[in-house]
């Protein structure tokens, strides 16, 4: 039904396009039109399609709400709102054909029949109304083919509106993130105290199946998760910081152009490798390496999921971030400063340490912050190489867990949607989002202020 409708409207629009274009073309043989013929054609096409499509979409949306609300009446004997929702969804899924499961309830079959009949009426009405609208506007637009008619201006106004909407879309994405995280997080705080979450020292989100089991309540003190995240990220920075920074210094100050032109892109390849690959690398290469090393040095208590493994692989991944951002900062320092220092007899390393790095200090700090925020938010490496048990420890040889590991663990596999266990993942994600956002805002503003300094 809807396909036929769409095709009809589309053909009508195409026809209108051709018709009006032709009319305008005839006019243009003797006059200079304000707008070229094809704009007149487009005008009709737009007028035929756009309002009709808007009507179509909003129609479906409104009808779904109305139909869903009426379906509930068939299950009025059930008190549990969640169950009613489950049943109505069952009816909808059944009618749509996504499932052929019949729910055992007296209201089910009547509800299905009601839903089917309503759907039928709705789609017939929708067909008629939409088509009528398209026809009326089609007819209406025919009147406008005139020398002075500003078809182009009208169309461009629509195009600009579409562009503006695209630009505003990014804001809606952010809003979507904030609202969806916030909404679930607030629901989580209905059952768990905010302070217990932020300052509690014990994290074991597993809820018991039966009420009489030990530890049935689950505990949601996220501090061990936060410390685990910090521990791993600091280890990563301890790897990436020096390597990235010394690489950047070497490549920007010492290396010949030839070496630089090869080495820089090669290091940047590290940033292009998917993180799941690093995770695999951690498991099959780095973990055994550390295990052997541990055995050699007679460390016996090293966990195969130790923070050291995840942290160092994460560190390898963020080397290019540190390196290229630091490189940007170093090369932005005016040449005159460097030359001035060298001319006074300073060696290149002294110039770098005493003049160039201080002059680009903001940029370097910004790059470290950005890299750190990357490390905090990285998921796959830690999911594969770190543990799920959140231990409160700062020993790099122990197994710790991170925010992202917990989110993945809590939201994959079987999940009941409303339990505090699943909701806690959103609370963690909210904290993650918030922290990375702050880090980014700070580092972007540092970098920006620093850049202005040399402009």
């Amino acid at each position, binding site marked *: 039904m809807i396909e036929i409708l769409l095709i009809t409207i589309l053909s009508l629009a195409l026809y209108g396009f051709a018709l009006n274009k032709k009319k305008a073309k005839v006019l*243009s*043989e003797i006059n*200079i*039109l*304000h707008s*070229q*013929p094809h704009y007149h054609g487009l005008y009709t096409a737009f007028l035929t399609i756009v309002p009709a499509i808007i009507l179509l979409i909003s129609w479906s949306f409104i009808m779904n709400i109305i139909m869903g609300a009426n379906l509930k009446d068939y299950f009025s004997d059930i008190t549990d709102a969640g169950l009613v929702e489950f049943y109505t969804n069952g009816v909808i899924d059944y009618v749509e054909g996504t499932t052929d499961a019949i729910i055992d309830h007296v209201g089910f079959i009547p509800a299905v029949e009601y839903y089917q009949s309503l759907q039928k009426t709705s789609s017939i009405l929708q067909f008629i109304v939409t088509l009528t609208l398209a026809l009326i506007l089609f007819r209406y637009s025919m009147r406008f083919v005139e020398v002075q008619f*500003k078809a182009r201006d009208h169309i461009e106004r629509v195009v600009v509106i579409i562009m503006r909407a695209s630009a505003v879309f990014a804001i809606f994405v952010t809003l979507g993130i904030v609202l969806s995280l916030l909404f679930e997080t607030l629901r989580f705080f209905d059952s768990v105290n905010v302070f217990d979450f932020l300052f509690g020292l014990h994290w074991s989100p597993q809820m018991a199946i039966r009420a009489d089991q030990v530890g049935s309540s689950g505990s949601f003190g996220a501090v061990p998760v936060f410390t685990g995240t910090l521990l791993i990220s600091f280890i990563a920075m301890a790897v990436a910081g020096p390597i990235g920074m010394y690489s950047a210094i070497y490549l920007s100050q010492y290396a010949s152009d030839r070496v630089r032109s090869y080495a820089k892109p090669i290091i940047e390849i590290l940033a292009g490798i998917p993180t799941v690959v690093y995770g695999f690398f951690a498991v099959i290469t780095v973990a055994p390496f550390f295990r052997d090393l541990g055995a050699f040095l007679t460390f016996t208590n090293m966990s195969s999921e130790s923070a050291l493994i995840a942290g160092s692989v994460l560190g390898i991944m963020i080397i290019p971030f540190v390196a290229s951002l630091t490189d940007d900062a170093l090369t932005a320092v005016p040449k005159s400063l460097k030359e001035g220092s060298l001319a006074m007899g300073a060696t290149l390393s002294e110039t770098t340490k005493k003049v160039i790095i201080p002059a680009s200090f903001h940029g370097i700090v910004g790059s470290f912050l950005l890299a750190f925020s990357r490390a905090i938010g990285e998921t796959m490496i830690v999911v594969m190489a770190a543990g799920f048990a959140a231990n409160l420890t700062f020993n790099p040889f122990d197994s710790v867990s991170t925010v992202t590991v917990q989110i993945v663990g809590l939201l994959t596999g079987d999940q009941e949607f409303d339990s505090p266990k699943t909701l806690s993942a959103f609370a963690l994600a909210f904290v993650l989002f918030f922290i990375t956002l702050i880090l980014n805002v700070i580092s972007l503003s540092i970098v920006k202020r620093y850049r202005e300094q040399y402009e």
Partner: protein
Amino acid sequence: MTEQLKLSIKNLNVFYGDKQALYNINLNIMEKEVTSLIGPSGCGKSTLLKCINRMNDLVEICKTDGQVLLDSKDINDASQDPVLLRMKVGMVFQKPNPFPKSIYDNVAFGPTLHGMTNSKEELDHVVIESLSKSGLYDEVKDRLFDPGTGLSGGQQQRLCIARALAVNPEILLMDEPCSALDPIATAKIEDLIAELKEQYTIVIVTHSMQQAARVSDRTAYMHMGELIESGLTKTIFSNPQHQKTQDYITGRIG
């Protein structure tokens, strides 16, 4: 000389944000004459020129008040369409800016855009005519479909003139059209201007006093956003009324 008024600027003030760039300008431009605008750098010549075809609309912070009457109609009037205006008032810029397209497509751009031709032959005709008018046709007739960006600087500027002429404008604005060119190319453009004024009203901004003297019928001298004096070029150069004009012409202000 026909002595017919083509364009009349009345009490024009222009602001860039809080900064006023033009103060109460009054200037008449006669049909089928060359008027040159001279004055020290930053005095508002380009600004004034851009007011004539509303290129200033592109500068967000730019506000104008006063009147610019083209054939006695105010071009800033709400009912006036900037597109139609720019068809009537063409513009050539300081630095040659051919499109990264073929020579042919460069010239054909305007006519196609405005749907001024109804057939390929007509379009061909317009392109060839415009190129001939700008004196470029003989030089490029074998390579009409080569990129316009491959021409020499002077040729590029004449291509830009051809491109402007193809829309069949009434007025041609030129903002220091020779400042990026060598003396030989400059001479060609000056000859061209002399030919074009048979058909078009031309307003040219120039830095060179000699050029103004050579090509223009009338000259307007501007200083710090004000129009100091305007009149027949001969008079201005031989007998300037204002001290400032005299200083500038004799090279004391530059």
